[in-house]
């Protein structure tokens, strides 16, 4: 067996790239690897595929500071060299933030990610004091049930998303901008899509941008940030 080197890579997806689906980003990155001329390990078989795996998919239209992928190389390259090579070759809107060499093969991102943090940048179009806004979010948080309508292939069905909402923080910029950060569960029993959360906000809370900020994985003792 060849000597395989494992790397975990964090990248951001911003601007127009947010209109690209998870699958399309995966294809764009596998092409990036070829342009970057990295010594990628390929799967065996008639259609060799790069040994590359991704974390939880990002819903279309949402930006991210915390996308992750695991990559296998046949040579031991420095983290810095990989960062440089990738950033030279990535299409506009995708950028590597950091590369960490893993000492051994670890469980996949999809299996280990436990929760995700999203930041909502919200513009408030009516005159409201900060404490009123805080009270509104507290009220939402205290609800036992938060129903949204989920659109599926077989039609629309109501879903209670409250169980997936783990935590939140609020801060304010100027008179009318709220930074609302929410932590949601990600795992086998489901997750909460941030764009689905918008329907719970009042009309005069206008969501300007949603940005995925961090991912956490469950370890034996506690939860920690992926990378």
């Amino acid at each position, binding site marked *: 067996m060849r000597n395989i080197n494992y790397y975990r890579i964090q990248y951001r997806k911003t601007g127009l790239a947010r209109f690209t689906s998870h699958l399309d980003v995966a294809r764009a990155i596998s*092409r990036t690897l070829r342009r970057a001329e990295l010594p990628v390990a390929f799967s065996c078989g*008639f259609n060799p595929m790069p040994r590359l795996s991704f974390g939880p998919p990002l819903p279309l239209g949402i930006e991210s500071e915390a996308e992750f992928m695991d990559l296998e190389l046949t040579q031991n390259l420095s983290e810095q060299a990989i960062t440089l090579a990738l950033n030279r070759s990535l299409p506009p809107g995708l950028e590597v933030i950091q590369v960490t060499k893993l000492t051994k093969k670890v469980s996949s991102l999809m299996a280990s990610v436990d929760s995700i943090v999203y930041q909502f940048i919200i513009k408030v179009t009516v005159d409201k004091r900060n404490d009123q806004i805080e009270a509104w979010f507290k009220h939402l948080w205290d609800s036992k049930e938060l129903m949204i309508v989920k659109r599926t292939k077989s039609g629309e069905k109501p879903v209670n998303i409250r169980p997936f909402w783990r935590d939140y923080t609020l801060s304010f910029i100027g008179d009318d901008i709220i930074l609302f950060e929410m932590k949601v569960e990600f795992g086998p029993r489901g997750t909460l899509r941030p764009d689905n959360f918008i329907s719970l906000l009042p009309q005069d809370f206008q969501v300007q941008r949603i940005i995925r900020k961090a991912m956490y994985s469950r370890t034996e003792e506690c939860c920690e940030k992926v990378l």
Partner: protein
Amino acid sequence: MNSIYEKIMEKVEKPGRYSGGELNITVKPWEEVKLRVVLAFPDLYEIGFSHLGLRLLYHRINETRDYLAERVYAPAKDMEEELRKAKLPLFSLETKHGLGEFDLLGFTLQYELSYTNILNMMSLAGIPLKREERGEEYPLIIGGGPGSFNPEPLADFFDLFLLGEGEEAIIEILNVVTEGKNKGKTKTEIKHDLLSVSGVYLPEYYTVEYLPDGRVSAIKPLPPAPEVIYKRIIKDFKDGYLPEKELVPWIEPIHDRLMIELLRGCTRGCRFCQAGMIYRPVRERDSSTIKKKLPALIRGTGYEEISLTSLSSADYTGIEKLVGTLSDCFSTQGVKISLPSLRIDSFSPELAATFQAKPKSSLTFAPEAGTERLRRVINKNLSEAQILETVQSAFQAGWQRMKLYFMIGLPTETDQDLEGIAQLAKKVLQLGRKIHASKAGHVKVVVSVSTFVPKPHTPFQWRPQISLEETLRKQDYLKQVIRGKGLSFSWHEATMSQMEGVFSRGDRRLGKILETALELGCTFDAWGDKFRWDLWQEAFKIVGLKPEFYNTRARAYKEVLPWQHLSAGVSKEFLRAEDQRAEEEKPTFDCRTGKECSACGVCPTLGIKPTLSGGEEH
């Protein structure tokens, strides 16, 4: 980027169709160029992005210092609604300028059923459809591609068409327009100057006269326009233009691979095939150029597949050697080589194995007609033995699924020829079952049938298309005879072929039909689920024309055809002789062997010779 467009994109299903920002695009500073061109493909992004010709022009124009080219595709219904709601014009992908802000708007005319999309795109950009209603402030509307060999149904809407290959002519056109603008000339004056560019057709310089029964009686050029416009052609294709870089899309187009053109033209001489007639003669690119350019193109794009495209790539001189060399060179990077299609008479299992994803996938062959007799009529001179031999070697090489492509409604066709399709399919199935004896149930044969539509500039341009009723009858007949386990039958929507036939050999009067159909709500007519036969029929009723006049009517050789003033270099005498040879079931051989010239006229008329230097090393 303009956030107003971003807001709209957030509301549509596939924003990647409009966002731009693909790898290797060119975004030039708007104010710093002399002329701005937007190249339009009148169908969805996924279709339009895959089109090589428009991309060649895009790169060719952007490689100049003074001109910029951007792209636009037909917006899907959801985007159209958002644009109309927001009262925003249809915009380019690169800089999000409304189409009306460009100096030139160029449409590629790839298939007739995209014509309503052209008008709809103009309308969405706020550009008046009719040429005579467009003032100085609007762009020049230019058309190119195979449709420009009979663009008459679009003649009222376009300023000019370019016949033939565009990579040289487009720059000449832009030069003339720039010079005119510098001198403060009006659009009318600039168009007059464009008469000097060879291959350019300005419909307003030709008056068409009709007989009382609707046939054309005369096409009269206004001086100084020439009597006949000949197509443009790249004489030296050996070292023909290749871009330094290629675009890589975000969302997946139908052809998601690096395409490199091996050769142009095909002189096999199939009598139904318009491409075979209008792109003559055969010109092969030097294999050394291909080998030299490909590594940088792969490094610049990261594509995992290279497609060696042309009308008939397996005909390229030394194709096996080239494919072998390229496969060796790129396989270590996980890059595959593929050919777009394989011909029955140039198929070898070894060659096919290099191209096909895996032997388990299906292999497509096109006998085109069900009997040897009818294949002689169309000059696709394949014996049944040849077909079965090829299919046998494919089965032996491991393939289990075959797709056989045929046309119905070819000249002289009888029900025996239809029966022949079923017989051939059954023989292929039996052969496959015998070879894959242990897994006979896995062998599948799909028969795919489309309706023959006579095209301008082909030997069959005078022939009637079969009627809707006849098409349905033939399809029903085939449904009856192509039955049984392992066999399946698919067919092309009969009404769509009828409409394609109308516009294929249409005249200028059809402009009104297009406008009316658009008003009634026809767009994306090439999409089976969007095509509205009822609305098209209504449009004909409103305008007072009959589709049968255009599609199912036989023309006399002496009739003035609406495209008579447009020439691909192939002589009318040759086409007529070929039509007669079809009747007599006589073959006409490919001139690329060098043994025999079929005297089609293209070489002397255009001052050109076939070039077959392909496999030679320099």
